[in-house]
């Protein structure tokens, strides 16, 4: 190209290009440039608003972006658990309301398909209870499947067998104690029985203390009894046996002994005057008066004649009333 490229005639060197029309082959939607000014102005205002908003209006909490990753991951885990629960424990709306009729319909259809409709029988009341049975079964399955926090201590099931056996052994031992029974009303009468036993023991103990036997009495008694019974039987084994208790002589001797004992007792009941005196009121009253008082009384009220009179009337009976009155006067003074 020898001539200046900016010459408008440069195109004459390129025949093919020169043949192409220079009119603008592109077009725009109708009215595009009429609105373009407004659209550009609006875009400028929008850009300014975005700049202002992003720097002045919105803010985030401190360390928001530092914790954002962990928060999102936690949320994902929670959402995942919620999705599992929703998908695992949900039934379509009105599912249980329609289940009964649906199952009946299914049974009828199955029966018709099998051609043996009459063979398909269910227990009486089966369909009436089926709804509640299924609900119960679902509830049980949910409880079994759900990890509801019902845990057992570590190694619980490993030790359960031995624990049960130990408990059974303890229960058996406790049941064995039940053989030690007491008669009915035993404890109600136990107190009085013990008191009676105590009285008896005291009586026995008192008898032992009061009723004594000579030393070696029971040793000799055994021999004496043997000599008088067994040994004597041996000597007279070949003689005739005499029944002493049935003889008349024995009866008379027994009666005589009885009378002798009664008479001796009656005689012993006859007391001497000293014994009577000892049990008299005067003796008892005088016994209660101190000796010093009696001595003082005698010193103040007796003289020589009294002593003689006393000696002369020593054997006379004492008037108890007069003596009591005299003594009372003395004590009142």
């Amino acid at each position, binding site marked *: 190209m020898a001539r200046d490229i*900016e010459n408008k005639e440069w195109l004459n060197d390129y025949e093919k290009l020169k043949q192409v029309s220079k009119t603008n082959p592109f*077009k725009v939607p109708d009215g595009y*440039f009429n609105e373009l*000014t407004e659209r550009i102005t609006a875009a*400028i205002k929008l850009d300014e608003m975005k700049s202002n908003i992003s720097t002045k209006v919105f803010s985030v909490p401190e360390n928001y972006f530092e914790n954002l990753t962990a928060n999102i991951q936690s949320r994902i885990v929670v959402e995942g658990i919620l999705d599992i629960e929703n998908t695992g424990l949900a039934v379509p709306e009105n599912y249980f309301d329609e289940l009964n009729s649906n199952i009946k319909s299914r049974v009828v259809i199955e029966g018709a398909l099998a051609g043996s409709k009459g063979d398909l029988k269910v227990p009486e009341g089966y369909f009436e209870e089926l709804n509640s049975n299924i609900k119960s079964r679902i509830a049980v399955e949910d409880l079994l499947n759900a990890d509801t926090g019902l845990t057992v201590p570590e190694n619980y099931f490993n030790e359960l067998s031995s624990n049960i056996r130990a408990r059974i052994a303890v229960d058996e031992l406790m049941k064995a104690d039940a053989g030690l029974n007491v008669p009915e009303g035993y404890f109600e009468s136990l107190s009085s029985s013990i008191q009676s036993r105590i009285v008896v023991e005291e009586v026995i103990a008192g008898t032992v203390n009061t009723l004594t036997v000579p030393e070696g009495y029971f040793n000799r008694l055994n021999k004496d009894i043997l000599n008088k019974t067994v040994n004597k039987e041996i000597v007279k084994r070949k003689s005739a046996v005499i029944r002493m208790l049935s003889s008349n002589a024995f009866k008379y001797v027994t009666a005589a002994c009885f009378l002798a004992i009664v008479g001796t007792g009656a005689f012993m009941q006859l007391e001497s005057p000293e014994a009577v005196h000892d049990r008299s009121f005067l003796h008892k009253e005088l016994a209660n008066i101190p000796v010093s008082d009696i001595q003082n009384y005698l010193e103040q009220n007796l003289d020589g004649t009294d002593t003689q009179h006393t000696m002369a009337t020593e054997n006379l009976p004492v008037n108890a009333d007069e003596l009591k009155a005299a003594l009372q006067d003395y004590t009142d003074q």
Partner: protein
Amino acid sequence: MPTQVEDAEILSKFQDERTRNEAFNLLLNKYQQKIYWHIRRMVIDHDDADDLVQDVFIKVWKNLSGFRNDSQLYTWMYRIASNECITFLNKKKQRNNISIEDEAYNLADTLADSPYFNGDAAQKKLQQAILTLPEKQRLVFNMKYYDDMKYEEMSQVLGTSVGALKASFHLAVKKIEAILSEED
């Protein structure tokens, strides 16, 4: 370049806070179609061109107060538009992970399917030939062929020497002529 309002007047009004919006409206009315077509020839698709022309004028609004009169206003805006086009096309290639050649084929398909292209067969063939050029060479060819820009003005837009632009344009025209000379 025919001007409706002198660039100096626009810049003067833009410096005044009270007349800034008026100045910008004058600027839009004067240059929006030129900028749009410059972008449209590069990206082919109308919607992409619409987005880019808005982005370009937003940048113009933000930076016009700092504009210095060491260059013409329209070459400054062409420079912004050209950079936006190259940035957009590079992002598109990276997003689709395709080569320059494949991107040219995609743009050609877009051109063929676009309801906003009403050129004849020769014009369509010309556009397809232009799409085979490197991006910067396409910019040079389009500004010279369609906008009749001088090399000095193109130098201000692209930041390239006039000699380099002349050589680039020469290579571009030769390639396009060769393509147009090929039998269909």
